[in-house]
């Protein structure tokens, strides 16, 4: 075969390559770099070989290349995670170019292309990503159209316009399907790659954990409040209660652990919550964390279904948060929990400290304990102490074995992690039940949409102490040292060297950029809230609003009615158009005749004249010859001689042929 026979029309190939490049562009970040290189090489080769510059490959070369790529994939990914599967798909998508000869091949490749576009959304579901995917779909459709139509001189046919017209026509159907088709939850969840799942606070707190978190500008969660947003000093997003200390790391004790699920044995009175103060209803949209705990302000009074309350009055759910998740919570500014008395188990856990660690602090704590008339005085004395000559910095000196001792007596500089850790240790040493709470503090209000964005750099750790009659009370030692951290956010509490370490350092320098970012974020948020998170509940609410009822049978009825109307609307113009210029009886009759003969195994060839056809069929099936000769003669009389012929005779002939009476 010569190169001429192998090559596709230039426009088709051009569109195809452009589409492939567009589709693969966002995926290149996720794929192994050699696969991107391979894609480039194959695409360039395809272009050159169709221009006759580079040679075509034989079959065995193709097999060799395919095997090599498979081996490469196997070596790169040793498991069957999502990335491996997507890479395989992309490899197939690209290598198909090596054997692209016929328009049919392009069609197959296009269908595969739509699938690959779908995989883009596995990695990004933001507004920009979705719009980009949609663009890819449109361009893919243009390619399909160009391929289908074949070579047409420029100007005769405008594929882009045509595709936009078709897409515009499909839009109402898409919207109706989106709103009306019953929402089924995801049938399975794709495990995220471990590399991407390390966002958010973790279940233990070692020195430096939070500081590294603060270097990230990524959004942790967004919250929409009904009514006012609480002031900044109230915005403590609680995630986990850490009540176990091994001398260096704080973690959850077994009774608190929301992953171990040993939290079921509640003492009923422990859950009792007396609330007072202003009530806040809000909806949280949590970015995927790959962990199962959720974030709330203060202690939640009520919350969405499928979420549970832990002993530390935090929320968690059964499965890890693997995609953006939305839940609503009600909290009050003030609450009292377990004021009546601490259970023995909880008290023991909340007082436990390693035996040999930090002896100096223990001695000091016991000394202060004896001097203080009550717990509040002791706490206040500690806070006053650190306020006096401690400083807040993101670059604290490193600490040795007895970290609390060294921090309190020598370095005297650190951030929330150090303050909360040493505070809780000190209180426990002084006999006051205390625990560390981690989560986020603060957040920035998006002026465009009015919701609160909490980012990783808002990560924070603080403390809670148990006081007789008051229950668990929040104490934030960091606020004693650096009140700005709490009131205005972490950006304002650091000197310039420190704030360079924060994740948003770069965008803070350009006002325009940060403004743009805010707008984009607002858009994204809205997109997620109303489009990506359009679930069963939202659909139900929508139906309720639209039809006044959300009974399933009614929904089905509406869906069917909508579908029916749409089908009629689509077919109607066709039908009306046909009727308006209805074709002459004889022509329709002849088409019926041809159809009937085709059924009997003698189809009319395309473009074949009536006389030739009759003659050919007459030779193949002599028993038909006479009927067909008469039919053709009548047809010619009517169509080409403009003479009147008897319609009943025509019908009779058709009937005879149909009923095979001639046999």
């Amino acid at each position, binding site marked *: 075969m010569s190169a001429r026979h192998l090559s596709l029309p230039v426009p088709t190939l051009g569109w195809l390559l452009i589409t492939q490049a567009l589709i693969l562009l966002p995926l290149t970040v996720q794929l192994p770099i050699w696969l991107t290189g391979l894609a480039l090489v194959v695409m360039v080769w395809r272009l050159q070989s169709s221009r006759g510059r580079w040679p075509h490959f034989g079959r065995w070369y193709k097999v060799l290349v395919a095997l090599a790529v498979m081996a490469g994939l196997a070596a790169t990914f040793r498991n069957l995670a999502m990335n491996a599967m997507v890479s395989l798909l992309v490899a197939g998508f690209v290598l198909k170019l090596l054997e692209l000869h016929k328009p049919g091949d392009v069609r197959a490749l296009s269908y595969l292309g739509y699938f690959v576009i779908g995989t883009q959304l596995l990695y990004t579901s933001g507004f920009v990503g979705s719009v980009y995917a949609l663009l890819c779909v449109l361009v893919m459709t243009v390619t399909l159209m160009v391929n289908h139509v074949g070579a047409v001189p420029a100007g005769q046919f405008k594929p882009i316009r045509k595709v936009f017209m078709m897409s515009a026509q499909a839009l109402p159907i898409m919207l109706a399907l989106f709103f009306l088709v019953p929402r089924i939850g995801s049938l399975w969840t794709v495990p995220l790659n471990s590399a991407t799942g390390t966002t958010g606070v973790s279940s233990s707190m070692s020195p430096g954990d939070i500081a590294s978190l603060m270097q990230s500008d990524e959004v942790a969660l967004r919250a929409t409040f009904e009514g006012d947003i609480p002031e900044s000093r109230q915005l403590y997003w609680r995630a986990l209660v850490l009540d176990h200390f091994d001398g260096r790391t704080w973690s959850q004790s077994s009774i608190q652990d929301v992953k171990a699920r040993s939290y079921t044995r509640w003492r009923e009175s422990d859950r009792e919550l007396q609330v007072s103060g202003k009530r806040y209803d809000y909806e949280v949209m949590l970015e995927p964390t790959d962990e199962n705990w959720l974030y709330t302000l203060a202690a939640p009074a009520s919350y969405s279904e499928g979420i549970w309350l832990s002993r530390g009055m935090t929320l968690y759910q059964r499965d890890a948060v693997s995609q953006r998740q939305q839940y609503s919570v009600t909290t009050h500014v003030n609450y009292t929990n377990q004021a009546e008395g601490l259970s023995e188990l909880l008290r023991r856990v909340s007082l436990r400290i390693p035996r040999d660690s930090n002896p100096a602090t223990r001695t000091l704590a016991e000394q202060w304990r004896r001097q203080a008339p009550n717990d509040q005085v002791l706490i206040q004395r500690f806070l006053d102490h650190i306020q006096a000559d401690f400083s807040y910095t993101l670059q604290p000196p490193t600490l040795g074995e007895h970290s609390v001792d060294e921090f309190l007596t020598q370095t005297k500089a650190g951030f929330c992690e150090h303050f909360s850790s040493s505070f809780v240790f000190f209180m426990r040493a002084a006999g006051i039940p205390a625990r560390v709470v981690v989560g986020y503090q603060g957040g920035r209000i998006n002026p465009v949409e009015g919701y609160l964005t909490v980012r990783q750099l808002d990560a924070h750790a603080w403390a809670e102490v148990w006081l007789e009659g008051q229950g668990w009370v929040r104490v934030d030692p960091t606020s004693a040292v650096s009140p700005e951290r709490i009131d205005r956010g972490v950006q304002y509490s650091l000197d310039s060297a420190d704030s360079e370490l924060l994740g948003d350092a770069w965008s803070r320098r350009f006002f325009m950029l940060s403004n743009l970012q805010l707008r984009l974020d607002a858009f994204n948020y809205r997109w997620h809230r109303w489009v990506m998170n359009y679930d069963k509940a939202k659909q139900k609410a929508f139906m309720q609003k639209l039809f006044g009822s959300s009974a399933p049978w009614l929904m089905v009825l509406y869906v069917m009615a909508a579908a029916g109307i749409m089908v009629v609307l689509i077919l109607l113009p066709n039908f009306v158009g046909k009727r308006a210029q209805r074709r002459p009886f004889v*022509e329709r009759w002849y088409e019926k005749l041809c159809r009937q003969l085709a059924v009997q195994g003698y189809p009319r*060839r395309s473009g074949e*004249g009536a006389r030739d056809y009759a003659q050919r069929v007459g030779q193949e099936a002599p028993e038909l010859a006479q009927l067909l000769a008469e039919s053709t003669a009548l047809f010619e009389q009517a169509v*080409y001689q403009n003479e009147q012929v008897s319609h009943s005779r025509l019908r009779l002939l058709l009937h005879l042929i149909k009923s095979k009476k001639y046999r």
Partner: protein
Amino acid sequence: MRDNVSQVVAEVGKVLLGKEREVQLALTCLLANGHLLIEDLPGMGKTTLAHALAKVVGLNYQRVQFTSDMLPADILGVSIFDQAASEFSFHPGPIFSQLLLADEINRTTPKTQSALLEAMEERQVTIDGDTRPLPQPFFVIATQNPQSQMGTFPLPESQLDRFLMCISLGYPDPEAEMALFKGGDSRRLIDQLPTLMTPATLLSIRQDIEKISASDSVLSYLQRLVHLTRHDSQYTHGLSPRGALGLLHCAKAWAYMQNRDYLIPEDIQAVVPSVVTHRVMADSFSEQAPMEKLLQSVDILP
């Protein structure tokens, strides 16, 4: 008169063996009042066809062998000063005949080619200011060698359009060739052919052909065919309106030869390859496939 026509085909077929369809096409072209271009290698029977046709139809016949040093005057004629009468007298060239065989037209210079082609179009020649009409009927059969041969001046596209049809004879099939070997000298055979028509009958047949009716349906089919040649990129040029009219005319002549007084799509299909190919595909008219594809792409019903 129709019997005459089929007889003509039969008689010419006795000389040009196994080429019934080509003879029919050539006759169609003659009846449709157009000129014929035969593209073929030397020795394929082009001259025999022209000669036999002239004899049977009763036309007077002239043959011009074109060469590269030929001048227009060699075809059209020249005025020579007559000493005795002391005036210029016109000596008509070979073009003043009813059937002119212009052999190897692409051997001569464009100047001479265009003199002939102009005369073909105008059906008159103007020499020294005098316009002289050509005889009626006037029919040119031009032959040319395939253009890959050396030393030729290919006819430009605009002049190809002057020929209503372009056919090629091709090699005879085995039976015809055997018969050819057994048969005698073709020149003697041609001399023995009967004359079946007069120029007057030819003219009246042409009038009958004009009267053949074409229904809207078949005209619409023709229009769709023509439209496709203009909008499909595989044709270098679309069919011009003159070409389309020529196609209709040929189809009518074909219908006349088939003993019908109305046009059907088969008539058009029969003449499409000879009428359309040289007009839409200037580069390679030996390739017939595009015409088959053209006919397959358009259905007889809208």
